[in-house]
């Protein structure tokens, strides 16, 4: 089980992947926005997304859980 966490305070601009999606290393899960920059959050391995913990418009803090990949 891999956990993908936010690296910084940001707004969730786009949720690209969905629960149950099969993802590979480097696939974009969500796109965050902070300080006028878009920051793609990528899968760091292959697996199935067991849960996406954020929705578009959410504010995430550094360390917040974004997705769980099983």
């Amino acid at each position, binding site marked *: 089980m891999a956990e993908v966490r936010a*690296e*910084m*305070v*940001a707004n969730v601009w786009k949720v690209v992947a969905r629960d149950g999606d099969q993802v590979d290393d480097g696939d974009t899960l969500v796109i965050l926005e902070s*300080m*006028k*920059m878009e*920051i793609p959050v990528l899968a760091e391995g292959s697996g199935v997304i067991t849960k996406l913990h954020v929705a578009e418009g959410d504010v995430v803090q550094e360390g917040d859980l974004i997705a769980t990949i099983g």
Partner: protein
Amino acid sequence: MLDSVLVANRGEIARRVIRTARRLGVRAVAVYSDADADLPYVREADEAVHLGPSQPARSYLDAAALLEAARKSNATAVHPGYGFLAENADFARRVIEAGLTWVGPGPVAIEQMGDKIRARNLMEQAGVPVSPGTREPVTDVAKAVIEAERVGYPVMVKAAGGGGGIGMGAAADEAGLRAAFETARTRAERFFGSPAILLERYVERARHVEVQILGLADGRVLALGERDCSVQRRHQKVAEETPSPGVSASLRERMLAAAVKAGEAVDYRGAGTVECLVDADAGSFVFLEMNTRLQVEHPVTELVTGIDLVEQQFLVAAGEPPSFDPATVQPAGHALELRIYAEDPVRFLPGPGTISEWDEPAGDGVRVDAGYQAGNTVTPFYDPLLAKLCVHGADRAQALERAREAVTAFRITGPKTNLAFHADLLASPEFVSGDYDTSLVSKLRPR
């Protein structure tokens, strides 16, 4: 002189404009969002008006809220700073229609230069050199492929209505073009509300050099020297200097003359910047775009000329002559600006946070234009600029030495900062030699 001015901006630039206003006895009105209530500029203004929530669209980009703030505070003029609505011709029109003085060029000049395609065409007609590119907006990828063949690879793909490097990308071949075009188009629609794309021949090994112009109330246009802005990450400036180490006296003369022509072509009033790409080896340049407002890096020009550019903006807006004699402007020494961003110094990813320690350097030739102080929180809502660390020296070597000492002395704890990047930049043999171009940052931080 103006009676009062509402500064329709935030952070360091609002503070900068307020400083000159107060020195000249012009009543300064600040505006602020929820996120910015505790920033220094709010307290330093004569009066401050709350605009709305933190999101830019509901505060600093809300024209109606800004005009209402001006009405409530009886401000008689509006200074837009840079970014937000500074280059929005409709906002300028609404300010003027409300009976207020707009501290900036006329709305028509803003429009003419705001559309990069129109600006290129206009400059070509005025005799200012432009690089090969598209003369009409490109809106679909098939057309982009045809146009890129005509222009010649590598090409730069840009949003026609854009700025700040957003959506810009270079392409070396058709596959790269298709990818860059898609990125540029989605960003253009999202950030600038127009999908129009411009293709231009990409100049490799170029320096990014711009000329400060000032359109006087009597219609004359002055060029106040150049600034080298080749130190960039993600097509955004990180450090600037004047004079440019890559511009010879004869090239400077031609660039300044072209910048005056560019300003005259749009009947320019106030402070503006003509951005060019310079091929230092060939000693040639092409027009890139014009920014119709005060530039972030204006302090380096102020340091070498001794001219307060914000004061000149106020004077031009009030219909008065400048405070200096245009015939005797003689830049002296060398100035650098280092942009202190809230971002990590390696990957340059944003790092907002609460500032627990903020200790600015001081000393001979050191000027810090800061937007924050200890106790403030840097939020994710706005751009990452924390402060501009500027230094002036008798020559480039002294300016570099002062910059090194100032970077070491600058202490910021809390948010991430790129101070360590600046230390590396100032130690880099390439930067120190002066013989560098826009690829410098990617060499200092290879992926």
